[in-house]
């Protein structure tokens, strides 16, 4: 067992840490954390470090965006800490330099299952939100193409199908995120929902969203109208629009929904139709940040993760041209950060995991470069539920990180 310093490139990190703002006097200076909470100021020097999301931001920016395991972890640890990683930093740097008078750019996060695509997406969205953008976040497009109990024929168009529950839920979350914008932006035309309900031109968007939330039957059409308004008005320069879609391959994949034992085509779903229109880069004044996901997708092989495989020919052509951002497994440094973070939170309970035996212990797990991060975190959380830490035989659990 060789003794190694905790972070191999620790010299730079320590210097950087020393130059940052005064750390909490109560806490020890931890090399895996950074006190820089503003994503705009994150850079390579913060790579592999955890930054804390403030509770207000957690509530407003991510009512529905975070992965479920991360939400459980936030609840357990009473804080939301996100690791700063190169894919997110890359996208943020592009966003800083982009020209917003040109059509919106596509950014596509892709990688193997459990590598951190959704978390990187959330990091980027946090940046957008702190910069005052309007964030349109579809947390999982797969939820709109499967397991839909109610599928109503559309009120406006005869050949379409509505999903009232999903649409209204999404509208509610959208309202939570972008409340301050909704009063400022006005509608550009008149919408007639039913014989008795209509929204006039020039009304604030908040009314539109209210309409969708209250009248569940027309919520899918409200979503369509909302997206259209935002598309038209983002180009006018008042605000920047960030369209974030997780699991974007659902828009061009297959659906398992059936209407009276007849399969429904993807084009016939209102929500998907509107989403596809949004993903077209024929509007300016914003960015389209997407992430692929195999986990929830239908009829795709478990091992596929490349854009070509998951998007299909049609999807790839529609998304073209895009900026591909690969997301890979944790590097050694990131892995050590993760490990130290869980140690700090007292999540890992094993006599061997304390510092002195740390290096020998780590040498036990030092083997694969193919370790999946989600599997690491999952295995960190195996056996004990998310809400309590227990003394489990860690030597059994840890060597599973492969």
């Amino acid at each position, binding site marked *: 067992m060789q003794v190694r310093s905790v972070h191999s490139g620790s010299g730079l990190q320590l210097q950087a840490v020393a130059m940052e703002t005064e750390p909490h006097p109560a806490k020890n200076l931890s090399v895996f954390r950074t006190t820089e909470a503003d994503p705009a100021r994150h850079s390579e020097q913060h790579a592999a470090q955890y930054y804390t999301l403030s509770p207000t931001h957690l509530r407003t920016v991510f009512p529905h965006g975070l992965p479920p395991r991360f939400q459980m972890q936030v609840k357990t640890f009473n804080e939301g800490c996100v690791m700063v990683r190169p894919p997110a930093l890359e996208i943020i740097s592009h966003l800083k330099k982009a020209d917003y008078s040109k059509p919106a750019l596509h950014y596509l996060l892709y990688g193997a299952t459990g590598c951190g695509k959704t978390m990187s997406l959330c990091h980027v969205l946090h940046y957008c939100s702190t910069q005052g953008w309007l964030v349109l976040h579809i947390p999982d497009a797969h939820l709109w193409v499967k397991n839909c109990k109610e599928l109503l024929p559309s009120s406006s168009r005869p050949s379409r199908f509505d999903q009232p529950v999903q649409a209204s839920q999404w509208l509610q979350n959208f309202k939570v995120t972008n409340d301050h914008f909704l009063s400022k932006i006005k509608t550009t035309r008149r919408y007639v929902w039913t014989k008795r309900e209509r929204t006039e031109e020039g009304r604030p968007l908040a009314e539109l969203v209210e309409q969708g939330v209250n009248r569940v039957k027309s919520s899918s059409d409200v979503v369509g109208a909302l997206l259209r308004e935002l598309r038209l008005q983002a180009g006018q320069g008042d605000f920047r629009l960030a369209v974030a879609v997780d699991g974007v391959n659902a828009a061009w994949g297959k659906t398992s929904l059936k209407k009276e034992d007849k399969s429904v085509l993807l084009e016939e779903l209102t929500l998907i139709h509107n989403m596809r229109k949004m993903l077209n880069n024929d509007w300016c004044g914003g960015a389209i940040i997407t992430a692929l996901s195999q986990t929830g997708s239908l009829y795709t092989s478990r091992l596929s993760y490349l854009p070509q495989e998951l998007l299909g020919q049609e999807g790839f052509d529609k998304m073209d041209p895009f900026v591909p951002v690969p997301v890979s497994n944790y590097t050694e440094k990131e892995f050590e950060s993760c490990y130290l973070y869980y140690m700090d939170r007292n999540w890992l309970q094993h006599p061997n995991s304390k510092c002195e035996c740390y290096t020998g212990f780590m040498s036990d797990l030092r*083997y694969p470069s*193919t370790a999946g991060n989600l599997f690491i975190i999952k295995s960190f959380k195996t056996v004990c539920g998310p809400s309590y830490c227990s003394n489990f035989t860690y030597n059994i659990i840890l060597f*599973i990180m492969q």
Partner: protein
Amino acid sequence: MAASRAAVVGSLFWKCGSCSTGTFLICTNVNTQLLSRQICATPAMRRKNLAAAGPQKFTEEFIKKQVEEFNIGKRHLANMMDEDPQTFTQEDIDVSIRPRRKHHPGDQVFPRQTAVQWGEDGRPFHYLFYTGKQSYYSLMHDMFSKILAVEKYQDRLRSKNLFSLDTKQISLAGSRWLLKEELEESLVENISDHDFARFIQLIERLVALPYGAAEEEFVLGYRRQLEVQSSKQEIQPLQYDQKGVAYSTADGRRKMSTASVTLKDSGSGKFTINGMDQLHYFPVLQDREQLLFPLHFARMLGRFDVDSSVTGGGRSAQAGALRLAISRALLSFLPEGQVEDMRQAGLLTPDPRVKERKKPGQEGARKKFTWKKR
């Protein structure tokens, strides 16, 4: 010529050995008459309950005479076959005589039976004859008298203030007590389970005494050596490939799957199964756990590159087969003591459980059809 002569001799022995019916009626001067009957003199008889055979069917003298005749015949046979009579073994006898007719030394033909227990006047020789289990009880009495002797010795030492507790105790490591069957065989008597338990209790009491080491010989006579199980394990020697890197291969099976594994030394911990990475082949944590357990147990996690192939069975069976194969391949890299540890951890035991067959008249292997009262 030799063969025909052998045949003649063989037939003679066969007659003697088979104890054909009716020819012998042992008339003793004793009141009790021992009737002879045809006994199949096969080796299987040895396994039978010796005590149940009752007192002997043939007198000592008869048996002795048969044994002498056997030895004479053996020497004649050796001369006929032009071989040295001193080194003429049982196998040679079997070979020279025609295979149908077996010819065995006296111990196998006449199994060990209790000799006649009473003299001419009908009085039994042994003082415990009327207990019914004379050998057993006499053994118990002997042991107890030994215990008493040791205790008396201890008392003497105590009276002289020389008593100390740290004397050499009888070492019982690596051996086991006699089994009930073995004890029955040595005593030529039936023993009940209760009797056997009492015997073990008494002899353990003897062992537990501080100065019991005096009776070590006696006690060890009732112990049998345990074989070290791992010495039966065959360990393949290490093979070296062109670059001088050590590797070893092994197979494993579990349920319906077979796995074959190659462990290469000085690796980085890569693990390939059927060309795929193990993370992709086994998405379930439990399976990966099974794969890594042998390496983790031997503390050689990052040392090897594993290249394996597995077919058949389900995911759990494949994981089990791989685990067994890895443990076997790992044996070549391990020091001696660790092999025994692995065996005791259960890593080297193939799991014998297979799917039980479905029986007719039932739904499945165990499940019955719905029982209707009427």
